[in-house]
């Protein structure tokens, strides 16, 4: 098959599945809906794997337009694909995780009335994400960007009868609006200043010449064009990849069903920002200021979101904060110009985080939709597969040597260490401290859920007597005499399949992706200005050596310390966390309230804009628009139509008169024109 057609097929197969399940789901039934969508995604996954294999074996990257949508003033807006190693890797990650999630969903959503709708959405998401990563121009990138945002919105609010879900999806939508606004402005800058083309190739070709170009946004102060453009684009990435301070939507997005938390809010969509910045590396490399902004935003996210993970009791929220923190790591890598490390971590993270989410989902199924970790414990015996796979995922996450996360995360830390960019000192502290935090909360989760006493028995008992729990909707959960069961095979199979790359992919991929030719000509690094990667390459002597060396490094011992602390706190001496909680009152409250950011945003933006809206409503809408424009124009229209109605008398002679007056008018008009000549 010609590669172009293959790419088209890869992108469109999920769309077809989505359309089938979405439009005809009511007719074809549940089974056919999931068969259709899974078949579509499977086609994509196989095609993507083939593509990656093809490219790795010397196949030519593809860059071309498929269809010209429209041309305005010589600027083409087209649908085009750029399929190189970076794209192919993203395609494999997206489609394989998506395929796992599709299969998993059969089990997870089996009792949900919106079964077909859900399958339609996730397939649509896969299509949108593929369009995003395969794009060769900014317009299609933006289309994919918005489309994944839309599907994310739909899926967070999938249970649309639940008020919290509606609040969460609205929040996600609005916060992303802020990011997208910046992103759109960034694209506007590119269109306006980079030679009028929106094609990546053209823009990148034009970029070096504009390195020192300046613009005056506000008259009098000149800014570097490249910095402004890159920061605007990065604001888009901040929204989508949930970087501080636009991260607030991601924890709330856990209101959606677990499969999409795994697919969209851990493995794929939230990494779109990382992908985009890597793709734009030829632009970002030209602005140190922008890179510093990226670095600082990433380090804040990496460290402070990790803290929040410690105090969460909802199993999904712990994983969500860990996702935020890991996204911070990737952003940090971007900031120190280690784009390929960021993408590498993106890939390993996609596998092990999807695994952790799906495992959490499996636990939730086992607990009959109770998500509070305080009610769990000792599940190891009842859910062995979930237990083992979770353990693998957690080990990968904290960077245990030989597991996938180790290679990517350690490389990030190394890269930050080697960087000389402004802010890299803080970033180094943040990522190293983050290792401990990550290990601590990951194993806090692990121990609370899988080890220790079986607390669900006590819960119900307690409830009867002194209503101690703040869990309002406690109709979920296990009864005192119920036992959790291992989930069906459609749930555990994806866990096992995801566990495999979570272990091995780092070891295999580190050499080609970080130090080989995998990203040659795709990711551009100015090695003189940003020597981090070059320095690392000097010290790299193969994956095995790196693993062996790990035992002598600080991060390894920090991670170990985190695990031990978690074990000690939650297995040996559960009274200690409670004591700490009591002692560190204000700090704990601060963390509990997520640094009050939500409240600040709510007070500042939500209330503020409501106030502003109220003002607009009273003055602008009611007085000006309603009073003057709407009612005024309605009155005007009324008047007008009364006049025209009178003209439209129904008598031929008045019509003829109108025509003659018309001719007269034309003639007069022309006569005055002639006289004026």
């Amino acid at each position, binding site marked *: 098959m010609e590669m172009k057609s293959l790419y088209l097929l890869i992108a469109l197969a999920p769309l077809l599945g989505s359309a089938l399940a979405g439009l005809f789901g009511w007719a074809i039934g549940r089974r056919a809906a999931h068969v259709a969508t899974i078949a579509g995604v499977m086609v994509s996954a196989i095609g993507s794997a083939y593509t990656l294999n093809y490219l790795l074996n010397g196949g030519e990257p593809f860059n071309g337009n498929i269809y010209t949508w429209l041309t305005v003033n010589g600027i083409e807006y087209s649908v085009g694909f750029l399929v190189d190693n970076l794209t192919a890797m993203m395609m494999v990650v997206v489609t394989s995780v998506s395929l796992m999630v599709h299969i998993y969903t059969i089990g997870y959503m089996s009792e949900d009335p919106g079964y077909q709708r859900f399958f339609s959405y996730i397939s649509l998401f896969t299509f949108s994400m593929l369009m995003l990563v395969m794009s060769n121009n900014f317009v299609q990138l933006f289309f994919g960007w918005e489309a994944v945002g839309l599907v994310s919105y739909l899926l967070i609010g999938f249970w649309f009868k639940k008020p919290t879900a509606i609040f969460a999806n609205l929040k996600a939508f609005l916060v992303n609006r802020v990011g997208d606004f910046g992103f759109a402005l960034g694209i506007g800058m590119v269109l306006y200043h980079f030679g009028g083309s929106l094609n990546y190739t053209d823009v990148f070709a034009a970029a070096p010449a504009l390195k020192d170009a300046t613009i005056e946004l506000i008259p009098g102060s000149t800014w570097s064009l490249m910095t402004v453009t890159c920061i605007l684009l990065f604001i888009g990435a901040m929204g989508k990849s949930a970087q501080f301070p636009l991260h607030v939507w991601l924890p709330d997005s856990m209101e959606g069903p677990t499969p999409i938390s795994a697919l969209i809010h851990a493995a794929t969509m939230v990494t779109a920002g990382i992908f985009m910045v890597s793709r734009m590396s030829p632009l970002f490399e030209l602005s140190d200021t922008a890179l510093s902004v990226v670095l600082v935003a990433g380090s804040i996210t990496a460290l402070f979101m990790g803290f929040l993970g410690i105090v969460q009791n909802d199993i999904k929220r712990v994983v969500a904060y860990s996702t935020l923190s890991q996204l911070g790591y990737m952003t940090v890598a971007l900031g120190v110009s280690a784009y390929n490390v960021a993408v590498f971590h993106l890939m390993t993270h996609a596998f092990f985080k999807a695994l952790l989410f799906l495992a959490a989902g499996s636990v939730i199924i086992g607990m009959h939709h109770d998500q509070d970790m305080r009610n769990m414990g000792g599940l190891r015996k009842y859910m062995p597969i979930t237990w083992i796979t979770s353990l693998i995922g957690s080990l990968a996450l904290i960077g245990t040597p030989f597991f996938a996360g180790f290679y990517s995360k350690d490389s990030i830390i190394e890269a930050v260490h080697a960087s000389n960019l402004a802010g890299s000192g803080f970033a180094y502290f943040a990522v190293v401290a983050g290792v401990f935090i990550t290990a601590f909360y990951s194993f806090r989760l692990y121990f609370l859920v899988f080890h220790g006493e079986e607390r669900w028995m006590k819960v119900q008992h307690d409830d009867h007597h002194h209503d101690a729990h703040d869990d309002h909707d406690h109709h979920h959960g296990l009864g005192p005499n119920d036992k959790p069961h291992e989930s069906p095979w459609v749930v555990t199979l994806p866990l096992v399949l995801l566990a495999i790359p979570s272990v091995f992919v780092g070891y295999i991929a580190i050499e080609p992706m970080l130090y080989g030719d995998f990203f040659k000509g795709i990711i551009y690094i100015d090695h003189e200005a940003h020597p981090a990667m070059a320095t690392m390459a000097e010290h790299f002597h193969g994956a095995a050596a790196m693993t062996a060396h790990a035992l002598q490094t600080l991060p390894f011992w920090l991670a170990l310390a985190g695990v031990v602390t978690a074990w000690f706190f939650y297995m040996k001496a559960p009274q200690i966390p409670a004591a700490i909680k009591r002692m560190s009152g204000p700090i704990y409250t601060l963390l509990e309230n997520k640094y009050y950011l939500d409240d600040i945003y709510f007070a500042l933006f939500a209330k503020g804009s409501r106030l502003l809206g109220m003002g607009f409503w009273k003055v602008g809408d009611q007085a000006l628009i309603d009073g003057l424009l709407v009612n005024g124009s309605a009155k005007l229209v009324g008047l007008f139509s009364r006049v025209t109605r009178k003209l439209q008398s129904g008598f031929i*002679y008045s019509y003829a*008169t109108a025509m*003659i*007056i018309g001719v*007269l008018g034309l*003639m*007069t008009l022309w*006569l005055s024109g002639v006289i004026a000549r």
Partner: protein
Amino acid sequence: MSFQEVVFYVLSAIVLYSGLRVVTAKNPVHAALFLVLAFFSAAGHWLLMQAEFLAIALVLVYVGAVMVLFLFVVMMLDINFEKLHEGFWRHLPLAGTVAVIMIVEMVMVLLSPSADLSSMNEIAPLAEGMSNVRELGLQIYTTYLLPFELAAVLLLLAIVAAIALTMRKRKDTKYIDPAVQVRVQRADRVRVLKMDAEPRANADTDNNESAA
């Protein structure tokens, strides 16, 4: 002023006057007759331009056929022209203003130097033995073949349209077909039924029932 010019202005005056009278005449028959007069004068104009055939065609077709038909229709229909003239004076101010402006503008256009009417060539006399009919025929059947054929289609369309709009197949019309009358057989009209005689009492009840 040459003789031709005198004739032209006289004819033009008649056309204008009769045109005005067509609109203003109270009696519809008079109006129609004024229209005939206008046509006649226009035919005179054509004669002045040595287009004898067209002049005669105008008289024959418009005056001879169309207008006569028109007169018939006017006379057969009982049109209340008084009613049609209602509101004439009411609308006159507007209509008059429009008309005056129109005339002024057209005069301005035609009299302005850039209209340059004087450069319009006088009609050169036709060569001896030049036949109007022959020239017209040559043109119609060669250069103007397409419009000519299309005009024929237009006429066909007019016929179809007229028939479609006026012909009625009235289902309730009673008419006699002599051929059918002649061919009629006894069996078509009379049928002899054989039936048993009925007792009288039954006949009585029958009658009662039918009466009820």
